[in-house]
């Protein structure tokens, strides 16, 4: 199975992706692999603006028909916004995980922490290991 992993993104072992925006904020979502594993997503709860989170905090919930899954913050920072479109259309996480299915945007406490995350090749190795 070929993995859909945009090269410009950073990744985590818990299957989040991070996009660095020109304004210094970052956008967070779940990977194509994660949405596929969860199945049809029918509910998403995203964090509110202003929330301060540490790296590894559970800050969003994505629920498929079958089960609920936490989504963890890849880095420490302050939430700028949750994705309002997911309230009525959580299935965007399935159909466009790296685009319209983004979960939240935050201002990282330490921009260097983003660079320390996995690159696409590193995340691909994580997926290969877990498939073994």
């Amino acid at each position: 199975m070929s993995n859909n992993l945009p090269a410009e993104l950073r990744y985590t072992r818990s299957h989040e992706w991070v996009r660095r925006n020109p304004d210094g904020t970052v956008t967070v979502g779940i990977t194509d692999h994660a949405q596929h594993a969860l199945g049809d997503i029918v509910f998403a709860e995203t964090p509110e603006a202003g929330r301060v989170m540490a790296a590894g905090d559970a800050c969003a919930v994505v629920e498929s028909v079958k089960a609920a899954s936490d989504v963890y913050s890849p880095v420490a920072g302050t939430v700028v916004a949750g994705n309002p479109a997911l309230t009525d259309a959580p299935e965007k996480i399935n159909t466009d995980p790296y685009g319209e299915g983004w979960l939240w945007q935050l201002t990282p406490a330490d921009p260097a922490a983003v660079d320390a995350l996995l690159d696409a090749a590193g995340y691909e190795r994580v997926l290969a290991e877990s498939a073994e």
Partner: protein
Amino acid sequence: MTQQTPLYAQHVALGARVVDFGGWDMPLHYGSQLDEHHAVRRDAGVFDVSHMRAVDVAGPGATPFLRHLLANDVQRLQHPGKALYSCMLNEQGGVLDDLIVYYRGPGRYRVVVNAGTAAKDLVWIRARAAAFDVEVVERADLAMVAVQGPTARDRTVGLFDAAGRAAALALEPFFAAEWGGEAGMFVARTGYTGEDGFEIMLPAGEVVAFWRRLLAAGVRPCGLGARDTLRLEAGMNLYGNDMDETTTPLESGLAWTVALGAPRDFIGRAALEAQQRAGLSRKLVGLLLDERGILRAHQTVYSPAGEGQTTSGTYSPTLERSIALARVPAATGGEVEVDIRGKRLRARVVRPPFVRHGKSVIVP
């Protein structure tokens, strides 16, 4: 070690996500659980239910034996082919399993039990059968598929021979027809989805060809995921979730399946009558979530009458909101709150089913 049904290779070839269910490798879905759910509500879907076990009970003592073994009364089955839903209880009135029993003719019955409980059930049934002139035969040679949905019967009858087609088309709901003898076809107008359709038993060696013909006839393969959302919308209990050995049918929304009218000594009767005399403290109800979120099993329910717990919960694809079954204090009604991941959300008590024949039937 998990077991596999004769259709396992078909599931894999269709790209199914396979999960362990009651010790069996079963398809959870074939790509989209939601699409499979809607296919059954709007058109037709087929489920491999070969993990369930048919058990034939026959002999001069078959009727008295089943009248002793089951909480519902097989004496109600006067016409060959008629089906009856029943619980099988322990002496304490706890539910050992829920099952369907088909009347095949004088002294001949077929019982279909759940996969996860089949081994335990057979030990129980054989031990109680010893005192009766009856033979208990496990039919592991049979496979089983459920074809469900508004077009299910139309799409399926064309696969039968002329005589079978006529018999299947003539079936009333909750009746079965069989042809071709013990290694033939057994077709029942029953199901676990709240839609019309058939449950079909046939020799394991023939089920792959039959499955392929169903798919060729436009019937969509559906997994256990859709089966669960469909049965929950239909307000049907899942054994092990909504009831078990620690709950009675009276506490499980199944009083209608307990036949106390005739003077009949069935296992668990004394315990149920004692519970009735004492008054029920708990009941099983439907819940409809009034806020955004998804109800799941084992969430705490708060009401002025006391606390309860959800036993099954899901997103309802037909209603596009969350529904659940919950065991709550007997006086519970109206508005309640459910603890979902640390937040209390508002829900309403409703009478199941939630959906019948593709439409909402919620009565507050």
